[in-house]
C-alpha cells in the first residue's frame, strides 16, 4: 500500500477552498478576475500558423496547416473547406501521467473546438480542401479547452485564413457559493458548476457552450455574463498578439 502525504495534483500554493474563509478566491483573485494571460503568435517554423497561450498555469500550443489538399475523398465538401481539429494533452501536462493518445474526453473536446471555430472561418473560399488545427496542452490547470480554442483562433489568423472574427473562449462557474470568472483547477474540481463558452466578440455570437454542475437560472445568467466579459478580455490579447508579431 502507498500512502501519499501531500498530493501534488491539488496544487501546491493554492490552498484549499475549505480553509479559505475570506472573500477572495484561493489564489487571491476577485470573483470577476481572470488569471494572468499571455499570447504569442507565430511560434513554430513549419506550421502555416501557430500560437502559444498561457493562462494561469495552463500552457497551450496551437498550430494550423492549410487550407491544404484533402486526401480523404469521403470527407471532401464540394462547396467549402472542412475544418478538422485534434486536441491532445501531453503525458506530462497533468499530475498523474496521462497515457498518450486520444481518449473520450479529448475526442469530444476536439469535436467541440472545431465546431466553435467553424462559424468564424470563411470556409466557402476554399472548396474541396481542409484546414487542420492541432492543439497541444503542455500543462493543464483548469480551462484547457478554452485556452486551446483561443490559441487556435490566433493560429488561424496567423496562417492567413480569412475569418469573420477571432473566436475567444473563457469559462465562468460557481465555486464556494460564488459565481466566478475563469475557474482554476481547484475551483473546477471542488466547485459547483462550470460554464465554458466561446464567442465571436464583435457580434456576440456564442459558438461553444457547455455546462456541468448545478446553477439557478439567475446564477447561470450571471455566469454567462462573466464568461462573455472574460472572452472580451481575451479577445483584446489575441489582437495584441497578432499585431506584436508584425511589430505594430
Amino acid at each position: 500500500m502507498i500512502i501519499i502525504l501531500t498530493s501534488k495534483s491539488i496544487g501546491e500554493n493554492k490552498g484549499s477552498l475549505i480553509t479559505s474563509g475570506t472573500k477572495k478566491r484561493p489564489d487571491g483573485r476577485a470573483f470577476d478576475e481572470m488569471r494572468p494571460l499571455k499570447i504569442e503568435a507565430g511560434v513554430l517554423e513549419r506550421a502555416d500558423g501557430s500560437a502559444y497561450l498561457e493562462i494561469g498555469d495552463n500552457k497551450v500550443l496551437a498550430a494550423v496547416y492549410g487550407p491544404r489538399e484533402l486526401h480523404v475523398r469521403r470527407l471532401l465538401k464540394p462547396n467549402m473547406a472542412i475544418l478538422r481539429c485534434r486536441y491532445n494533452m501531453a503525458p506530462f501536462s497533468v499530475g498523474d501521467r496521462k497515457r498518450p493518445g486520444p481518449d473520450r474526453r479529448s475526442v469530444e473536446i476536439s469535436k467541440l473546438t472545431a465546431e466553435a471555430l467553424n462559424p468564424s472561418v470563411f470556409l466557402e473560399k476554399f472548396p474541396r480542401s481542409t484546414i487542420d488545427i492541432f492543439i497541444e496542452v503542455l500543462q493543464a490547470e483548469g480551462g484547457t479547452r478554452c485556452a486551446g480554442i483561443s490559441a487556435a483562433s490566433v493560429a488561424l489568423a496567423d496562417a492567413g485564413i480569412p475569418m469573420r472574427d477571432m473566436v475567444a473562449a473563457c469559462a465562468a462557474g460557481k465555486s464556494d457559493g460564488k459565481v466566478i470568472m475563469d475557474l482554476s483547477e481547484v475551483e473546477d474540481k471542488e466547485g459547483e458548476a462550470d460554464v465554458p463558452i466561446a464567442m465571436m466578440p464583435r457580434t456576440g455570437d456564442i459558438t461553444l457552450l457547455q455546462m456541468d454542475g448545478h446553477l439557478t437560472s439567475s446564477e447561470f445568467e450571471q455566469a454567462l455574463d462573466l464568461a462573455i466579459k472574460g472572452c472580451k478580455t481575451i479577445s483584446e490579447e489575441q489582437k495584441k498578439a497578432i499585431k506584436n508579431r508584425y511589430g505594430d
Partner: protein
Amino acid sequence: MVQSIVPEIIKESVVNLIQNKERADGRALDQYREISLETGILNKAEGSARVKIGKTQIVVGTKPQIGEPFPDTPNVGVLITNSELLPMAAPNFEPGPPDERSVELARVTDRCIREGQVIDLEKLAIIPGKKVWMIFLDMHIVDYDGNLFDAAVLGSLAALMNTKIPSTTIEGDEVVVDHEKMVPLPVKEQPLMCTLAKIGKELVVDPSLEEDDVLDARISIGVRVDGSICAMQKGGSVPLTREEILNAVGIAQEKTKELRKSLPKA
C-alpha cells in the same frame, strides 16, 4: 507518415554545395546550428526541458510513478522513454499511434540514456523486489527542422537532470511518499548524441531539414563525458565504410564536448 518528395534540383544543390565543403545555411561541415535549452519550464512535470536545435523544437517532461520492478531486475528502478512526432511539427506527420520513425527515436534516445548510465537506477528501488520508482520520460516533438536525435538526447538528459522525485520512507509494509521533500534524481553521467549525415562523400554534423531529406546515410553516436561510446545508430539505405564510421566517432567525441556546454551547470 507520408514521405515527402524532394525536388531533384534541391537534392543537386545540397550535394554540390557539400562537395565544395559548403552548406546552404553557411555553416561549416562540422558546425551545429544555434542551440537553446531551457529547463524547469513546466511545474506539473517533475522535470522538464525545452530544446531547440535550429528550428527543431522538443518539449520533454518527466513523471515519476511508483510501480513494480521487472522480475529479472527486482532491485532497480525503471525508465520508460516515449516520443510523439506530433502532427503539428511537420506537414507530413500524421496523427495516430507512434509510427516506426517515432519508435526508433524513442528507442535510440532510451539506449543512449540507459547505456550512458545517466540514472543510478539501483537508487530508485524502494522496497527491493516489490516497489521501485518508474520514471516516464515523454518527448513532445512540436517543430521538425531536421536532426531529431541530438535534440531528443540533449532535451531528455536536461529534463532528467531537472527532475525531482518525492522522498520515501518505509513504515512496516507501507511506502510513505513525502511530496514536501523532493529530491533530485540520482544522475551520474551526461552522455550526449551527435548525428552526422553522409551526403555524397562528405560527413556533415547536425543535418538541417533539407540535408535530412537528401542524406544517403546517417550515423548517430552517443558519447559519455570521458569520450567513451554508449549508443550508435546507422540510418538510411546507403552503406558506410569502416573509415567513415571511425571518422564519425572522432567528430562526435569532439562535438559532444561542445554540445555539453549548453547543459545547465549542476
